[in-house]
């Protein structure tokens, strides 16, 4: 033999067990029970409860806040949703909308206390939608939705929540306008003992009259045993008892303890502004968390924006469910927005290039993807995969998208 190992330990071993392997295996199988195998375990049940792909809800109540409304969403048993998924305070749901302006999904932070989503009775979510100058969807929601309307929403999504191993024990929040909603949920969770950290919210509004959820926040602050503090900052009004100006480094320094994490949620300019303040304060990257910015605007202002495409319209071929639809796309529309305007039901959730739900194959053509919302994996780049929610056409193009096949019984 060409091998030089010692055989003394091997020689006495019987060869029969090997020759009988199949027979012995068959015998073990033969002895087993013939009942149907068990497939459902707690982990599976919990996965279905915590991460439903679709939740069917009804609007049970609407609260009017002037230029914003709070929608109370309850499970719609008739359509198969018996209870709502529990979530981390700060997470969002994406709401499917189908109206004249398009077929789309829009993300909204769950404003309510996670506790209110627990149990089988009376569980609900609250979302608060503020009118947005450019937002067709917010207009539609504020003007058309009424009590009793049915909606389809996603399971809870997103990473904008307190993480005790990463974040400091004290969080300073920079909130602008409806950006208060995830912090409202966090404050409620702190009051309920679900979350264990201290929260100082620096809440920017234009005037004292226009502060969204002012009374509700005050109530949470009162009940929080000093763990939640809200500081109102007015940009367009000077008034006693309120800070005046913007959410600046000086203001943060005034209210923050020695060690803290900075959480930011608000209109788009707040993120860049917040980053500047964090830099001034010498905060490390790990100490600054930002909510998803949502639909990208003004890509043409970026340095790497392709020359010669501004203001143009291109043809986009969309391969979807075995069909090819050709649509027009303006250079200032994301590929997702163009599909939505043509009522193509393409999947999406975060609208910020992050969650990956709209992952699609670029079959031909060039796209422009702003670096700050490029959440693709390295392999996506190599093999031509894009996130249409954060991609612009830079010429005629073709993509393949994958509609979600729904349950039907």
């Amino acid at each position, binding site marked *: 033999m060409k091998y030089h190992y010692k055989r003394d330990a091997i020689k006495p071993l019987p060869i029969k067990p090997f020759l009988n392997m199949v027979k012995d295996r068959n015998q073990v199988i033969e002895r087993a029970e013939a009942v*149907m195998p068990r497939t459902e375990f707690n982990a599976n049940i919990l996965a279905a409860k915590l991460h439903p792909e679709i939740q069917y809800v009804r609007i049970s109540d609407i609260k009017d806040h002037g230029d914003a409304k709070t929608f109370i969403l309850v499970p719609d048993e008739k359509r198969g949703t018996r209870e709502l998924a529990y979530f981390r305070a700060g997470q969002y749901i994406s709401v499917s909308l189908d109206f004249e302006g398009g077929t789309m999904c829009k993300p909204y932070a769950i404003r309510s206390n996670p506790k209110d989503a627990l149990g089988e009775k009376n569980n609900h979510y609250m979302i608060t939608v503020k009118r947005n100058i450019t937002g067709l969807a917010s207009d539609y929601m504020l003007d058309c939705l009424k009590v009793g309307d049915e909606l389809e929403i996603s399971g809870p999504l997103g990473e904008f929540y307190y993480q005790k191993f990463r974040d400091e024990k004290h969080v300073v929040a920079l909130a602008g306008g409806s950006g208060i909603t995830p912090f409202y949920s966090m404050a409620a969770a702190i009051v309920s003992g679900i979350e264990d950290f201290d929260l100082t919210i620096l809440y920017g509004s234009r005037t004292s009259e226009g502060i969204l959820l002012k009374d509700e926040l005050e109530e949470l602050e009162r009940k929080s045993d000093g763990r939640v503090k809200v500081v109102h900052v007015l940009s367009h009004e000077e008034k006693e008892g309120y800070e005046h100006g913007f959410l600046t480094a000086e203001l943060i320094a005034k209210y923050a303890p020695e060690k803290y994490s900075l959480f930011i949620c608000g209109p788009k300019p707040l993120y860049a502004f917040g980053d500047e303040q964090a830099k001034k304060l010498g905060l490390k990257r790990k100490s600054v968390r930002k909510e998803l910015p949502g639909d990208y605007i003004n890509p043409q202002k970026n340095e790497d924006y392709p020359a010669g495409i501004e203001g143009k319209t291109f043809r986009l071929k969309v391969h979807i469910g075995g069909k090819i639809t050709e649509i027009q796309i303006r250079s200032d529309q994301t590929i997702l927005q163009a599909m939505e305007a043509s009522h193509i039901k393409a999947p999406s959730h975060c609208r910020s290039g992050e969650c990956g739900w709209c992952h699609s194959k670029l079959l031909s053509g060039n796209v422009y993807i702003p670096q700050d919302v490029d959440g693709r994996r390295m392999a996506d780049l190599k093999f031509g995969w894009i996130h249409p929610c954060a991609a612009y056409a830079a010429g005629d193009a073709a993509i393949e998208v994958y509609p979600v096949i729904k349950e039907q019984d």
Partner: protein
Amino acid sequence: MKKEYDVIVVGAGNGGLAAAAWMAKEGKRVLLLEKHNIPGGCAGSIVRGRFEFELTLHELCQMGPKGTGEVRKLLDELGTDVEWVAMDEAFHTINTHPTHGFDVEMPIGSKAFVDEMEKEVPGSRPAMENLMELNRMIADAIEWLASYQNDPPKAQMLVKWSDFMKMAAVPADEMLKKLGLPDKAREIYESYWDYLSVDCTRVSFVVYSFMVYTYLTRKPYIARKRSFEIVLALEQRIRDFGGEIRYNTKVKRIDIKNNQAKGVELTDGTYIPCDRIISNIMPTVAFGKMIDPKEVPVRDRKLCNARTLGPSGFVIYLGLDASADELGIRGYDTFVRETADTHILFEKCKTRASHRKIFNYSCLNRAISDASPEGTCMIMFLLLYTEDAFADVTEENYFRIKDQIVEETIDYFEEAAKVRIRDHIEELVTASPVTLARYIGTPQGNCYGYAVPMWDGMLPRTMSGEKEDYTVKGLRFCGGHGTQMDGYSQAYLSGREVARYTLKDMKEGR
């Protein structure tokens, strides 16, 4: 109905991708259906902030340079475009036992491995050299077997490989003792056990040793752009070969009539006829949930019940804002445990309560130095649960329990590896058995298919795969739950094996 496809592959995990690619390469009309929006199953990556975390791949086995290892040959034959990274270390193992502990970094190369072992365990050289020579024979035997696609000429086998056959039926732990390895050398050698989802007292010696030896001689491999690079490379090849892939498309029912596959029904009611189906979904789930109970053969019910589910995992991904050098993290792949007794460890993995003193971690930056931006690094911890450790978890306590596991893991890691990472956590993601149940839909969220006790190990499974376990005409299974056992490499091999059987089925009308 007119049949548009020669074969439908259900599930685009590693096994399903390999099977679909192989069938398409052979000119068959393939439809690959995946319920998620992306392919990969357990394989993939996630982007968080400035980090791209590898989801599950530790290292591929049976690779090596072009034209060498079986998995390398398979992926090359399919034409997958992947930038491979070969590792020059085998593993780092830390045993924190107060009196019998060790902390060693083992190199690749059988000679270097024996040399390092001699340094750690003086006097181990003769037994280790003998073991490596045996391993060489075992590796040749397995490659010889594979060359006959699991159906070797029996007489030749008896003549050539009787020693292999004899040792195949002996558990690794027992055989290593018979071979006279000093205890500590055996313990270090057994470090890889948790890759196989069964402890060394119950896994075949030849299977275990083949894995170790293949890593040592062919090197462990990973893909530069994470395992998602392999996934998308295979996906691309399926397209190139003319296959069709549909995502967000869930199969509700595999239609079986009179013990013959007829087609699949999607959740929206669409019916796609096809008389050849390759299921990347575990038999337990396919037979338990997707096939008319009247059509589930008694043997399959019994087989599912005779088996124990493989372990599920709890994975922690950390993005740290300091480099591996700054933090003092050594080694790419490290096994940490409180004892070297693999059976005791396996038992400890049953519940959450006793879990904290065993896990594996890998620091990707030790394999690919620029895997994350300068001044940062990534660590992935893997904890196994061999039973239904999440049976008592509720929606309400779920997040707290996850935090508790993270806390215990970081505590023990800092103590065992003598590093401090707590103040450097910039990103933290966890994946629990619940997460796995969500993404791969397996019972208990298990990610190792079925446990591999001696009676249902790689060899008896492989010898039963083509005929004994083929119970429904036109329906075959591939993946980490297949004949080749769990793991990426094994799933690819399983996909090819089942594709080959299916091609043979088609040809012979069986």
